[in-house]
């Protein structure tokens, strides 16, 4: 059953990659990339256990953290890239 779960994760990663290449806006691409990263964490955790790797869970935990920070950073860049005169900005800061 571990094999079934790993194959399901791999299929989902392929679907997310198709959306990453296909996505009409940059937000779609970033959403698919974030989904791909989460699936990578699961793949490292399950595959490491199945293949009997050493300290694979540290890798998975670190990848989860890097994935989260990267997503937040890129999304903040998209949000505040070109608008110092954005009318919604003072409201959200207050």
């Amino acid at each position, binding site marked *: 059953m571990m094999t079934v779960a790993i194959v399901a994760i791999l299929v989902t990663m392929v679907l997310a990659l198709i959306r990453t290449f296909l996505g009409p806006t940059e937000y779609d691409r970033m959403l698919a990339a974030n989904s791909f990263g989460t699936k990578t964490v699961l793949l490292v955790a*399950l595959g490491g256990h199945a293949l009997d790797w050493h300290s694979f869970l540290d890798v998975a935990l670190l990848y989860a953290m890097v994935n989260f920070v990267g997503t937040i950073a890129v999304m903040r860049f998209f949000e505040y890239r070109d608008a110092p005169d954005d009318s919604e900005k003072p409201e959200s800061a207050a």
Partner: protein
Amino acid sequence: MNVMLSWLSDAFLLVGGFLCITGGVGLLRMPDFFSRVHASGVTESLAAPLLLFGLLLQMDWSLDSIKVLMILAFVLATNPTATHAMAKATLHGGQRPLVADEHDEPAGEASSKP
């Protein structure tokens, strides 16, 4: 007891894998960004804990189990946060969700009420 745990782990892994594929298909097939966020974010928040819990039941109790629990807690905390940040950034970026037209709305409500 051991057989029960094995069956339980298999069930968790199977349901988690199914939800995983469901999220991927929703990510690929949904019409606009906000429905894609919904499909991906909602299924991911359930598929990742199910898969990790299925993995946890197959391992012996050791320090690695604590690490799996840490990954589980981290994914559960950060996945909705990232989804929320993406939806907020998209909304501030000028995109609006696809909704029905104004004159379509009363008919939809009337047909859904009875």
